[in-house]
């Protein structure tokens, strides 16, 4: 990414519009406390809660990586599960066929996803807005169908199940700390990307693409870079899924799975970095709770989503910034 000297005005304008929420120091301290509390999880949480957290931490990375496109790049992708699935399959396939060390497979997984993202992005980014969304969806389905059909290589619809992680990681607490550690580092890296010159220029491509183009910014190049980076972290999230559940199967690549991080971002708020992370926690916990307690979980989930979409346009984080809904009585 070449940061052209001509661009600071755009970047500057946008950076001034950044989150005007809590004071950064307060925020950082608060987050540190939350991370410490999570790290101490095994001391006070039950086993099922810990496992739930393992899943959600991976999903939080998945959502934040997707939101790099969604909230920062203005690119609605319904195909990020492609890369999530590739991350998980990289570990599972290695275990089944190649038997290379786990750590090698784990490190390679995000790169494999990024490579796939490069080729998908090269084609999909030619299309605009809705067509882009539907094209990424088509790629997602293509990978899904292939994973389901290449029976001997991928295990078909059943997927791959087995002891694909080292015994040390299979110890519940170790697995938890490992996932927590990787997720926190990944989120920090993603955050770094969003506040880097690249991240600011990416926002410029979202907010005023013509202006960015006229200032000599290579919009396509930036979007492709964002797509590859997002693919990388989605792949990492997928690899974390494989650590959590020790399996990979075609549904991980499905467009329905691609919808999850989008939903999480919208619920949490796609215009703040933490929105998708918060969204991941809320969406997954709510979904688990509803599935476990009622047959009508789809109905309730649908209604809850509607309420959030219709009455909290910037998601829960946005709502928090603008003031509580029952205090202000609508934002219009």
């Amino acid at each position, binding site marked *: 990414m070449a940061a052209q000297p001509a661009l600071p005005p755009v970047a500057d304008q946008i950076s001034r519009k950044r989150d005007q929420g809590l004071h950064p120091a307060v925020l950082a301290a608060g987050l540190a406390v939350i991370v410490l509390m999570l790290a101490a999880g095994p001391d006070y949480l*039950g*086993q*099922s809660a810990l*496992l*739930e957290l393992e*899943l959600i931490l991976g999903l939080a990375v998945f959502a934040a990586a997707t939101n790099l496109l969604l909230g920062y790049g203005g690119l609605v992708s319904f195909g990020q599960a492609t890369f999530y699935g590739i991350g998980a399959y990289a570990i599972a396939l290695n275990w089944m066929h190649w038997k290379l060390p786990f750590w090698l497979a784990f490190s390679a997984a995000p790169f494999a996803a990024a490579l796939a993202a490069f080729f998908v992005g090269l084609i999909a980014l030619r299309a605009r807005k809705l067509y882009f969304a539907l094209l990424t969806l088509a790629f997602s389905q293509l990978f899904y*169908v292939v994973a*389901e*059909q290449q*029976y001997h290589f991928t295990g*078909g*619809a*059943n*997927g791959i*199940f087995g002891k694909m992680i080292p015994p040390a990681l299979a110890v519940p607490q170790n697995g938890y700390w490992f996932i927590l550690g990787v997720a926190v580092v990944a989120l920090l890296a993603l955050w770094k990307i969003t506040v880097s010159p690249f991240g600011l220029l990416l926002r410029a491509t979202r907010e005023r693409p013509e202006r960015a183009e006229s200032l000599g910014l290579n919009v396509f190049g930036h979007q492709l870079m964002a797509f590859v980076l997002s693919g990388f972290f989605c792949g990492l999230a997928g690899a974390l899924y494989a650590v959590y*559940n*020790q*399996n990979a*199967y075609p*549904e991980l690549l499905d467009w329905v799975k691609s919808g999850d991080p989008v939903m999480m971002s919208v619920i949490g708020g796609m215009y703040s970095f933490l929105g998708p992370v918060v969204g991941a926690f809320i969406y997954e916990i709510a979904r*688990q709770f509803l*599935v*476990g307690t009622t*047959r009508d*979980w*789809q109905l309730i989930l649908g209604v809850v989503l509607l309420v959030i979409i219709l009455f909290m346009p910037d998601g829960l984080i946005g709502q928090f910034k603008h003031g509580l809904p029952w205090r202000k009585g609508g934002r219009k």
Partner: protein
Amino acid sequence: MDHSRKMIAGLGSLALAAAGTVAFATSALASGSVTVGITTALSGPIAELGQTGLQAIELAAADANAKGGVLGKQVKVVSADSNLSPATGATNVRNFILDNHAVAIFGPVSSAVAVAEEGVAAKYKTPIFFSTSNDVKLATTNYTKYMFQVVPDTHMEPAAVARYLADAVGKKHITIATITPDYSFGRDTVASFLKSLKADGVNYTVKAQETPKLGASQYTSYIAALIAAHPDYTFMGQFGGDLVTLTKQAEGFGFFKHTKPMAMYGRAQLKALKGKVPAGAIAWDRAPFWAMKGPGMEKFSEAYNAKYHEWPSAWAVMGYTAFETWAQGVEKAHSFNGDKVSAALSGATIKTIRGPITLRACDHQGDVGEYVGTIAAKVNPKYGFQTYAHSKLIPAKDIILSCKITTAEQPKS
């Protein structure tokens, strides 16, 4: 320590009570309850399979509770939708065990979800009973000692159909086409079917093999390809709604005038097709209540019909059987402990509504047979759908894989 002394005292008094009169012990324990979990497809295209299975398990629990419960405890059934997703199914199982303290899990519909759930159940040493999904891998490559399968597996079922066909055609040369969902169930089934035909000495040629995707809504192009192949017999591996769709569309082509279809026409498909199932078609079902003899079966189907206003599907019959299996395992082990129940059931013979079932010690596969028959021309007035004109129970001993084969594939440890 004070605490452990109290526990020892408690255990001692319990043991005393147990050693005392049985009636006393039973009434003392009856105050408690115990939970079993079922997570299966309750929404989506094959929700019917999950729904009827769940209903039967709830009925079985109610029946057991009416008789004083299992090991004196009332049984509570918790259920959750797996939404056909392995991840959701696995999480549900974990939550049942860790949060609801479920002592047994009853199985899902699709094999992908079953494989995921099997792993979780084993991790927490909780027995899991498969009554709908029947992937042979569950008892071989993915075998754990906590799994029990009370349904004919993906080898047994097509082998039974092959045996039936072998008896029907004798030495005559026949041509065959297959159409199965592009899904592990479909693949395994058709492969086993052809292998079994060969083993049974049938002289056949395969003319066409089609694999439309699961849940397809348009089969015309596949049917056109099948028609071009002119097979004597067409083996159709579709199940649930897919089979209804395929039958309707093939019917329109007059396809069944030229070929004899073979398919898993169960209660739901027979009912949905309302008398339009081609008469004489070779049909099979894992537990067709109308073809199964015995007073237990009759009582069950009447009770099920009275409660849910529909006749039980095979999934319901087997769901009930699965519950019976678990309950008797607990009684035999005299414990809800997973290891003990597993040990008690391994190699045991269970009395069920469908007759005695022996769970082989080597792979925990029940010796359940498959019912194969031909579709009657007329609708059965009592049930409102076509049943079988002739049917045969192909016994398990004729079709089950030998322990030598299955154990060879089981994980070693």
